[in-house]
Structure formats: structure tokens, C-alpha cells
């Protein structure tokens, strides 16, 4: 296990180095003058030159790269041109919002996806099952940004059940940060009203973000349920006289959960990518919105920082999923 751990750590470190290379390459080697980009469209020639010297862009590329890597490890992502604040501050504000959104979205995907999958498996080849199949394929094809707009139109504007966008009302009192996750903090501080309001705000964006994932979870859950329901031990349980319902829930469902959790792990990175669209629609103050707004302002330091943070996040998640697998399945430690 130790050997396996060391090997996985080495791979992880290599990937991280590769990620740094990619972001550096995008910033410095790709066509387009980074100094001119950073200076903005209205900058004079001397301003561009000043920025070139300030950012060290006049030095050789290898030196710049070493500089870049040491900066990143020190948590220094430079300053945002549009707000002049350190990029790290922006990230620190946006990351918890995105994490909270993704956690809730994953919860939706698992609970609703498994429920739908089980329904389709139990009522196999009925109308419910066929509807589910159409739903699963269309869930992947549905443009999230459009779906989000439609939900806003219906649930927020027409019915008035949920707020249109944002993370919390402007005048709502915010909790003192503990975990920096807004809803969790509100609960910990005993601010029930704020927590409830936070939940109302997060419902629609989380639902939209979970939707494509929900569809594939339902598909996998259905297939796994059908497979286990046909297995010998389920037959055995049946012979012992257990009720169909208890077999379905206690045996089949439990077995279906592992592939579902693996799928969710795989979809984590995909969800992080989706935040760029969902957060734009719902004005959710997370990493995706930070990235999109920065691109629109030609403020490219935050863009690269978000790319790096999200990439790192996904790599870390993959690493942890691999470790968890190795813990549960000793055969994998060899490979």
C-alpha cells in the first residue's frame, strides 16, 4: 500500500507540474502579447512596456517559468487589473461559493438520479422506464444555460417560489465565517432564517448543474439494479422469504451505489467546468463567474488562477478517488 501511495503521489506531482506548464504556456507562449493583454485595449505603448517590466515579461522564458512556479506555491497569483486586489483574495471568496454549489448539486444528482433509476428498474419496460430513457438522453443534450433561464422564468418569475439569482438577498445578515460555506455557517451560528434563504437561492443553480449528471446517474443505477436483481444472492434472499421491496432496497440498491459514487467522482471535474455557465446565468459569486467576468474585462491573471485552481481540484479529487478504490479493492494496488 505504501509503495502504491508513493507511486500515485509521484503521478499526482507530475500532473501538477504539467498543469503549471499548460497555464504558463497559455499565458506566455500562445499568440498574443500578455503585456498588451494585461494593459487593456486603451493602453499606450509606454504603458505596455511598463507592465512588461513590472511583470518580468522581458526576462527569458525559463526564468519567467521558475518565477511563476515559486509565486504559485507561495499563493501569489498576481493582481487583478480590474479591481487591483490580489487574485488570491478573489479566489478565496469565490471558491467556497462554488464548492457549496457543487456539493448540493451532487446531492441532487445522487438522490434524484438513484430514485429515478430505481423506479425505472423496478417498473422495467413500462411507460416509466421509457420516459426515463428519453429523459436520460435529453438530460445530456439540454443546454444548461437555456434550461437555467427557463427555470428562472417559471419558478422565479411566474410562480415566485424561488429567487431569480444571486447567493443571498442584499439586506440579509450574513454569518461570521467558520467554514466559509454560507449555508453551513448559518446553521452553525444558529441563523436559521439565513440558512433557509440560502437554500432557496441555491436550489435552482444546483438543480441545473446536477441535471446532466442526474441523467447518467439514473442510467447507471437502473442498469446496476437490473443486474443485481438477476443475481444468485437475490434469488437466495427471495427463497428465504424476504419481501421484494426489502430485497430491492437492502440488497440491490446498496450494490448499485458503488458505481454511482464512482460516476459522481468522475463527473466532479465536469461539474466544475459547468459552473462557468451556471454561475453566469444565476449570478452565483463563484469561480466560474469570476473567470467569465475576468475574460470579458481582458483581466487574464484571475482567469489563469481559476484554471489552475480548478485543474488542481480535479487532480486532487482523482487522486483521492484512486486511493479510496485501492483501500476498498486490494487488487488495484498492484496496477
Amino acid at each position, binding site marked *: 500500500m505504501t509503495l502504491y501511495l508513493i507511486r500515485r503521489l509521484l503521478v499526482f506531482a507530475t*500532473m501538477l507540474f504539467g498543469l503549471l506548464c499548460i497555464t504558463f504556456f*497559455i499565458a506566455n507562449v500562445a499568440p498574443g502579447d500578455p503585456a498588451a493583454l494585461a494593459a487593456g485595449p486603451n493602453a499606450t505603448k509606454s504603458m505596455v512596456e511598463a507592465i512588461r517590466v513590472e511583470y518580468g515579461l522581458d526576462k527569458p522564458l525559463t526564468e519567467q517559468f521558475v518565477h511563476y512556479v515559486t509565486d504559485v506555491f507561495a499563493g501569489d497569483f498576481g493582481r487583478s487589473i480590474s479591481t487591483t486586489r490580489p487574485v488570491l483574495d478573489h479566489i478565496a471568496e469565490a471558491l467556497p461559493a462554488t464548492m457549496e454549489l457543487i456539493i448540493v448539486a451532487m446531492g441532487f444528482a445522487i438522490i434524484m438520479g438513484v430514485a429515478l433509476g430505481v423506479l425505472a428498474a423496478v417498473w422495467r419496460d413500462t411507460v416509466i422506464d421509457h420516459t426515463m430513457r428519453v429523459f436520460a438522453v435529453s438530460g445530456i*443534450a439540454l*443546454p444548461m444555460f437555456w434550461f437555467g433561464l427557463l427555470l428562472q422564468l417559471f419558478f422565479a418569475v411566474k410562480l415566485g417560489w424561488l429567487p431569480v439569482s444571486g447567493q443571498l438577498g442584499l439586506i440579509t445578515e450574513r454569518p461570521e465565517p467558520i467554514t466559509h460555506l454560507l449555508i453551513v455557517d448559518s446553521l452553525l451560528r444558529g441563523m436559521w432564517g439565513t440558512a433557509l434563504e440560502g437554500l432557496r437561492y441555491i436550489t435552482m443553480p444546483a438543480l441545473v448543474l446536477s441535471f446532466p449528471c442526474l441523467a447518467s446517474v439514473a442510467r447507471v443505477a437502473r442498469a446496476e439494479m437490473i443486474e443485481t436483481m438477476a443475481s444468485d444472492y437475490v434469488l437466495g434472499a427471495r427463497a428465504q422469504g424476504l419481501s421484494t421491496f426489502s430485497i430491492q432496497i437492502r440488497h440491490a440498491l446498496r450494490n448499485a451505489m458503488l458505481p454511482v459514487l464512482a460516476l459522481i467522482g468522475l463527473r466532479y471535474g465536469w461539474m466544475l467546468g459547468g459552473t462557468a455557465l451556471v454561475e453566469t*446565468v444565476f449570478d452565483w459569486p463563484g469561480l466560474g463567474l469570476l473567470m467569465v467576468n475576468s475574460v470579458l474585462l*481582458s483581466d487574464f491573471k484571475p*482567469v489563469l488562477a*481559476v484554471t489552475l485552481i480548478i485543474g488542481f481540484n480535479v487532480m486532487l479529487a482523482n487522486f483521492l478517488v484512486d486511493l479510496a478504490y485501492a483501500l476498498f479493492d486490494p487488487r488495484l494496488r498492484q496496477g
Partner: protein
Amino acid sequence: MTQTTVVPMAEAAAAVHEEKLDRYRELRRAVWLLSRSFSSMLGLGIVALFIILALFGSWIAPYPEAALGSVNMADMLQPPSWEHWFGTDDMGNDVLSRVIIGTQISLQVGLIITLGAAFIGVPLGILGGYLGGWIRSTIMAVTDLFLSVPSLVLAIAIVAVLGPGIVNTMIALAAVWWPGYVRLIDSKTLAIKEEPYVEAARALGASTPRIIFRYLLPGCASPLIVKASMDMGAAILAAAGLGFIGLGAKAPSPEWGAMLSVARGYLPEWWWFAFFPGMAIYLSVLGFNLLGDGLRDVLDPRTSR
């Protein structure tokens, strides 16, 4: 010696003929299987409809000038009616015409991204899979690296540096889309190169390019077609997404994502302006996904699940 060369000529010709007949039968069987699946035919129908719209859009559209960015303030933001089935937009242009003519842009963008990604990914996959060793390790390491960063995020970062626009969107998306092709072709090549007929060809002294073009590439054709069909949908969706957040095509262009981006400001009162371009994105992506799903069941039954 002469005998062995003369007599088998006829036999070889017969064998070639037989092989062609086999392929023809296989194709007919595939078409038959495909035509029996309702969802595949639905997908094919939708895709065919959009291809027709893309090819003949400027003849079909009731007001073709609407796509050129004309301004017609008298008809601004009209609800759907007999004259304007999908209503009119903020410039008084017919939304139906713009959606129809926008088909061409979206399909083209999807095709270019898919082809570009395949063009980068397929050679890398074949080379890695066939040559093996450190070349394969290097290629796969870079591929894994690109796969671990969400493609949309990486594409946005590239567009940020290149500058917004439809061409840069296509470049950025193709630049992050290729790793999937490397994975697919690499595993397929690894499987095929151990097949007896490839071993035999190598033993007979066939050159590497000949093996690649005569045996490996055709062997990869089915999964490649399936993936390309699925990717067309995904690429259209991604390009529209970039258009929506303002990084892709810009306003007067009838690109669906860009239309939606403008229309968003006119919700909720003028809902049709946003509803129909989004519907077009959804239907086209759905069509390619259903078709790809059906093709996979027919062409590549082992990987379907």
C-alpha cells in the same frame, strides 16, 4: 510456381468479390438494425432536418435579410404570430429566420471542432498504440493531463488569451477536445495490432504506413464514427455555451448562443426571443446524441451498455 500464381488469381478475384459482398451485407444489416430503433431514426430525422436547414437555410428562411443584422424598429419584439412564427427580436428581425440561418454556423462550428480534434487525436492515438514504449507513455501522459482539466475551463482560458470570437472559440475547443480521440484510438490500436492478420502483414514485410493505413485506420472506423457523432452534439453545445457567456460569436451574428446571450436581457416579458434559439441548440444536440447512441449499438455493440 506459375501454377500457384495463375490459378489463385481467379480465386483471389472471387475472394475479393466475396469480401465486398460481405461488407455490403454487413452494411445492409447495420442500416436495417438502425432503422428498427425508434430513437435512432428520430435522431437521424432531426439531424437530417438540421442539415437541410444548414444547406438551404437562406432559401427556406422567410426573411433572409434578418440574419445580416438589419434594423427594423417598427417590428421590434413582436410576439409569435402568423407573419413571425417565432416572434421578432430587439432589432425587429424575424427570430425564425435567424434561427434557421444560424443552423449553418452551429453545424459548421461543430464539424470543424470535431474534425480538428480528430485530426490531432487520431494520429497521436495510432502512433502511441502502434509504436508503444516511451512514445506511447509520453503521449498518454499529456493526454491524461489534458483530460484532468475540465475542457470548458481550459477552452475559456485559451479564448481569454486569443481574444473572444467565433474562430478563436473553434480553435480553443479543438485544442481541448482531442484527448478523447487519443484514448479511443490508442486502445483500439492496441487491440487490433495483435490480431493475426496484422501480424501476418508485418511478417510479410508490410511497411508501417501501409499497416497503419490499410489495417489499423479502417479497424478504428466504427468507434470513430460513433464518437464523432456524439462529439458533434457536444461541440455545438460547448460553442453555444461560449457564445452565451459572450466569448464566442457576437451579437449581429445569428449564432444560437450569441442570440440567447442578447435575449437574456429581454426576459421575462419577451420570452420567445430566448426560447427558440435555445430550443434549436437543444434539438440539434439531442439529434446527434440519439444518432450516436443508435450507431454505437449497431457498429460497436461491445462498448454499449
